[in-house]
Every structure is written in C-alpha cells, then in structure tokens.
C-alpha cells in the first residue's frame, strides 16, 4: 500500500506547488494522475520516488515513510535517461551490480526478451529509436522487481503510434507481477487506457479535483462509446476555466488537455 498523507510542497521562493494531497494506492492498482502543466503532478511523483521530499505531509510505502530513493520503488522519467557509455544490456542490468555476473546476464537476457529488444543487447543507446530507448528504460526499472513503479509522463515525447504501442506493452508487463503503477500524464486517452483509477488535479496550488474509478474491461477499446463516456467524466472534472462550455459540446476526440 502506497499512502500519500496530506502531501504538500512549497518551494524556497514561496511558490506552493502542491497542497494537501491524500491518496491511498492499493497493490495491483494502476493510478493515473492527470492534470495540466503546473498542477504539481510531477512534484507528487518525485515525492513518492524519494528524489525530492515533501515540505508538508509524507508518502509511505507499507507503513515506512519515504525519505530517500527506495529499493522497492522504481522510477521512469519522461526521457529514457540511459547511460550513453553502457551498452543496452548493461543499462538494463544497471541496478543489479550486486549480483554475480552469470545471474545478472540471465536476468538481463530475460528482461530484454520481455521488452522485445533481445537483438539490441549489444548496441549503444544512441543507436536506438525513442520508443526502443524508453522500453530499455522500462526494462531497467522493472529488472529489480519493484513493488511500485512510478512513471513521469513516460510516453509524452513519443509519436502517437509508438505511444499506443508502449501503453499496451506496459499493461502486458504489469500483468506479470502486478506492481503498483503510478503514472503521471496530460493525455486523457492514455489515462483511460491504463488506469484503474484516475486522479484529476487542478493548479495553483496543485490539488485533487476529483478521483474516478475506471470500470472499463480490459483490453480497452479506445473507440468504444463506453470509453468516450469515461472521457466525458474526466473532462467534467477539470476547471471550467480550462475548458469552456462550448468545447465540452464538441466531439471529444478533437482535443487533449
């Protein structure tokens, strides 16, 4: 259980990025946090990762407060952030340096196979496409078998086709061990494809505007009427300042937040 308890963040210059966010994420859940720029969604995720510390409240995993990066919590950034001086295989195995060589090689091979990049084991990161590099980053984060995987807009730098492909791929990987996933995005469709619950945030300071269960069966059809209906529910939760009433009456697939 990952628990956010009245998490707030005030920067030294006095700007309040995040104010009193409380959430409980149960094992096996995919929680997607969605909101516009500056709503504090990345700040919230970084507080859970232990890279930054909340100035108010706390984040705890299974009762233990997170004050630094945690062994059981993996993090994937918007950019792959592969180490350019290591081969793809060594990047994937970066978190396994404590294991003996043969065991490490076995785990790396298995991880690369799961993300479909076995043939890229020996190449440098610079030779990968954006989607491949992000898959390597996912393999690197999952190889330590975390119980929580945090993803900070992991697919937002990719083209639409690669993005959809990687969303499905992430779900396949999640099915294997069902870790808690907490994913931050600004893409409503991405949120609804992935989430068991969607948290909608609003800005200044970042607060929870509402939480929605997503009752759609998997695999989810992005074009089904039920999917469209869920989009409507999410949109209604956003501030009316963000979306005019006129926009709400238009076909929903025409815009993204």
């Amino acid at each position, binding site marked *: 259980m990952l628990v956010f308890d009245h998490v707030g963040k005030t920067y030294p210059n006095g700007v309040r990025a995040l104010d009193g966010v409380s959430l409980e994420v149960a094992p096996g859940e995919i929680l997607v946090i969605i909101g516009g720029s500056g709503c504090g969604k990345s700040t919230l995720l970084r507080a859970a990762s232990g890279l930054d510390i909340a100035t108010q409240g706390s984040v705890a995993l299974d009762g233990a407060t997170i004050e630094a*990066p945690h062994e059981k919590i993996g993090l994937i950034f918007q950019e792959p952030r592969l180490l350019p001086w290591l081969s793809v295989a060594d990047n994937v*195995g*970066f978190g396994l*340096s404590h294991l003996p*060589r043969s065991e490490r090689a076995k785990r790396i091979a298995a991880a690369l196979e799961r993300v479909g990049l076995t043939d890229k084991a020996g190449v440098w990161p610079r030779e990968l496409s954006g989607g491949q590099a992000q898959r390597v980053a996912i393999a690197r984060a999952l190889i*330590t078998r975390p119980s929580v995987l945090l993803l900070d807009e992991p697919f937002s730098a990719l083209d639409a086709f690669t993005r959809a492909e990687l969303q499905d791929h992430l779900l396949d990987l999640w099915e294997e061990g069902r870790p808690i996933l907490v994913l931050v995005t600004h893409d409503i469709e991405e949120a609804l494809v992935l989430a068991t619950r969607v948290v909608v945030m609003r800005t200044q300071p970042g607060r929870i505007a509402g939480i929605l269960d997503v009752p759609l069966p998997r695999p989810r059809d992005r074009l089904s009427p039920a999917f469209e209906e869920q989009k409507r529910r999410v949109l209604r939760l956003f501030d009316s300042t963000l979306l005019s009433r006129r926009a709400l009456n238009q076909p929903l697939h025409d815009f993204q937040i």
Partner: protein
Amino acid sequence: MLSTEGLVKPQRAQRRIGAARLLRPALGLLVPVALAVGWEIMVRTGLSSGRLVPPPSVIFSTFADLAATGELQRHATVTLLRVLAGFASGVVLGTLVGAITGYSALSHRLLDPSLQGLRAIPSIAWVPLFILWFGIFEASKIILIAVGVFFPVYLGVMGAVRSVDRKIVEVGRVFRLSGSAMVWRILLPAIAPAYVIALRAGLGLGWMFVVAAEFMGASEGLGFLLIDGQQLGKPAQIVAAIVAFALLGKLTDWIVASIAAPFLRWEDAFASR
C-alpha cells in the same frame, strides 16, 4: 574505468578501407616535405650556405650521430622521466582538487578563486622562486612541470564534473548508488571525454615546461642539448633536439589517446562519423 559493467560490448563499426584512407594522411605531408626538399636543393646548389639553417641532410646526420653515440637516448630519457614525474603529480593533484571543487559547491567557492588567481600567473614566473625554495636540481624542475600540468587538468575536471547532467545523476540516485559508486559508475564515465582532453592539454604543457625547466640550469636533457647547441654554435644539434621533442611529444600524446580510446567509443560525436 567501467570494470563493474561490460557484459556485452557493442561491435566496433566497420572501417572503410581504400585508397582514400592511405592518401588522406599523405596529403598532410606534402607541404613539409616540399619545404625540406626545397631547402636541401637551395643548399646543395649553393644558393644558400645553410650555416644558420642547416639542410635536412645535415640535421639527419647530426641526429644519427647523437643517436649512435647514445647521447640522444641519454638526454631524451632524462627529459622523458622529468615530464612523466611532473605529469603524474600534476594529473593526480589536478584530478583530486578538480573533482573536489567540481563536486562540492562549498569547496568551489572556497578554493576556485585562489586557484584561478594562481593560474593567471605565467608559470615561468615561478622559476626564480622554485630555485630558491627547491634548489637547482630535479625537485624544482619536476615541480615546475607539475604546476604546468596541474592547471589544465584541474580546469578540465572541475568544469566537467560541474556540468555532468543532473538527469543522469538522478538515475544513480534512483538506484541508490553510494557516494563512491556514484563517482565510479556515473561521474567518471560522464566526464571521461573531457578528462582525456584535459590530460592531453596537460601533457602538452608538461612538454612545454620541461624546456623551461631545463633552461634553468641542467647538465642533461633535451633542453640542455638546445642550450649547448646555441652556446657552441651548432644549429643542427638544436634542430635535432627540437625534432626529438616533436617525436616524443607526439608519441606520448598518441599513447594517452590510445589508452583512452576504448573508454570513449560510446561517444555520439560529430567526429566519430
């Protein structure tokens, strides 16, 4: 440097082989060879006496004579050892101090202004003081060379550590690397390209300063050969010593570059295409 990794190494890219590969370096030889041949002809035909600027054949025979008597090897070895001792101490100190001031903001604020101030002093200006402090023998020479090597290495390491991408450092933090693992697995590889350039710049300055050091009173070394050639009016010996400097400088630089090359194959650089 990357001893903990290295399960799988990317393949070296296939090199193009052909006439162009042999011709390109040859093109660079055209100008110096033409000048040398031209000068040789001028002297042979009596257009110039070649007394102050000896022709290539005389330089070559002087060089060969010095080598045959073992003089050249003796002087070159002494100079080489001075450069190596000065280079080694300058690199060790420059790397340590550069890493510390690059890593810690406090020590940067504390030390960098003083070091930049010292760097502004032309190192030759230290010579009289070093002779007073350390005598005229090996110590003062090696210290002068070390000072010359220290600054480019310090500057290179400090600048490179400070500019390591915060995003890459965060990857290390997420994987909970200890301080030493962070240095060994993230910072060192990240600064490797800049470090190699700093080492080569330092080595170049080391060769510059060994000449200055040997000018300040030496009975051995290539710098002594230069002074000796000047005092005895033997320009061919001076040029022979200069040629020896050029060969040794190029050779040591090549050695540093070759040792570094395997660590830099990952670079996605303009020049690696």
